[in-house]
């Protein structure tokens, strides 16, 4: 089985995000970047499938700046076999990311594409679904468990949905997007990090893929959210309940 895993470079989820005063984006000075946590879960899942099934190959792909090499090296250190970086500058729209991966799927012919359900920077939660439609494939989004049928012609995906958990069966090849509880990603080991340096990391300029990069969604400005003021401290439970009743009038 060949598994393609998408991995995005994003700011550390624990970092404080500040909007640039000129409204063109966020302040990136001294910001630490990591593999998008959901992508990390997707990588981990691919590695577990490989370990269980044997003979599988895990290929990472990222679309972004040259510095995204760091995140691909992290994935290689976790145990992925090789990586492809589609070089693109600035903001790449989700639709363009999906189109770029569509081209790589045509080149690589994977049996499964694993991705994170959303990137924690843009929070769009669309790329996996768009890619599935482009390819005419099935999808199992927000996955918390993946089970393969005996013949591996399909997978049963447990999905975290409103009101509970849903199981769907998807024919392979398919797109599966990872939710938080699919697994707990491993840390790269020291030998893993050493080995990762020698693994193949191929770079392809996005222009070489020949995809339509026309603007679909234009970003006009980025603004800070309305600030919420801290209110009062109360000393006792009785005081709290009284204020909620008489002042806030919510109970």
């Amino acid at each position, binding site marked *: 089985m060949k598994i393609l895993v998408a991995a995005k470079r994003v700011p550390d989820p624990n970092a404080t995000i500040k909007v640039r005063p000129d409204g063109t984006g966020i302040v990136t000075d001294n910001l630490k970047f990591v593999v998008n946590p959901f992508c990390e879960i997707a990588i981990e899942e691919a590695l577990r499938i490989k370990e269980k099934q044997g003979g599988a190959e895990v290929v990472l792909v990222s679309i972004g700046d040259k510095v995204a090499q760091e995140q691909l090296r992290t994935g290689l250190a976790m145990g992925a076999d090789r990586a492809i970086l589609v070089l693109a500058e600035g903001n790449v729209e989700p639709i363009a990311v999906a189109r770029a991966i569509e081209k790589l799927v045509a080149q690589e012919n994977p049996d499964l594409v694993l991705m994170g359900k959303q990137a924690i920077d843009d929070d769009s939660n669309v790329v996996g679904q768009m890619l599935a439609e482009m390819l005419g494939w099935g999808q199992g989004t927000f996955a918390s468990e993946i089970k393969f049928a005996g013949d591996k012609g399909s997978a049963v995906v447990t999905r975290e949905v409103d009101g*509970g958990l849903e199981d769907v069966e998807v024919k392979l090849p398919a797109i599966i997007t990872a939710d938080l509880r699919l697994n707990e990603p491993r840390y790269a080991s020291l030998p893993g990090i050493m080995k990762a340096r020698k693994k193949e990391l191929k770079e392809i300029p996005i222009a070489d893929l020949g995809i339509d990069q026309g*603007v679909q969604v234009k970003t*006009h400005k980025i603004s800070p959210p309305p600030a919420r003021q801290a*209110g009062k401290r109360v000393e006792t439970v009785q005081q709290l*309940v009284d204020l909620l009743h008489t002042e806030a009038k919510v109970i």
Partner: protein
Amino acid sequence: MSNVLVFAEHQHKTFSKNALVALGAGKTLAAQSGGECHAAVLGTGIGALATELAKYGVKKVFAVEHAALEHYTADAHAQALSALAEEKGCDIVVGAASSIGKDLLPRVAVRLGAGMASDITEINGDGTMVRPTYAGNAMATISIETPRKVISVRVTAFEPAAAEGQAEVENVAAKIDEGALKIKFVGFNETKSDRPALTEAKVVVSGGRGLKNGENFKTVLEPLVDTLGAAMGASRAAVDAGFVPNDLQVGQTGKVVAPELYIAVGISGAIQHLAGMKDSKVIVAINKDEEAPIFQVSDYGLVADLFKAVPEMKEAVEKLK
């Protein structure tokens, strides 16, 4: 002038607030573009649902039936919904940013060659829209530049459509190429609860890692939840630890809620959690750590041991009644 098609989602034949909010936003978009607002309900045996939908001030309700739509699956629904939008000349497709809307609408966008904006929280008069990014720490003002547009709306950010008039219901046979379907519904394991739905409740009480275990959710938190007639939510830490089911997670990557009253119990207030509740009208935090970031967004903060404060609060609320 563009006509709008609202995808009115239902879960096993009941509408939730999701459908009505999508309608509300759809009507705003239609008014803005000078077009008409239609609604679509997909499934089998959906006559009654379509009639109900017709009461909410849309021009027409399309009842789209097909055996392949019996259960929600992304590929069959995407085929049927995009075919309907084309056939009825609707250039804007709108739905809720719910787990169904998120799963479905990007596929519809690709089929229609439409640009897509997800999880929008504002529709501006100039045709731009606002969507939260970076866990709500950066609000992006965007516009869709393609003639066709697909939009998912954050359910807490718009008013549900009000009942007005009685629209015509048109039955439509769905256009679905069954040979192309790759997803099969297997089963739904519903989180059973007699409490109000998390995203619709006026009061939400959420518990975090501070509750320490699932048993304490039952014995300490739930009595307060039920006294308040509230919905129960949780932080990711509480869900990951298995204290409560997954679909109670509030936050950037869980549910977004904006009730009249949100009470955070034993929750530190990580940005990912705040992203899911900071638009609540009144926020209360109960936490023993006075430095906890949750206090920075709280209207009322109580520094206390929750195991003492929560039962006391239940008693005090009961006395009000």
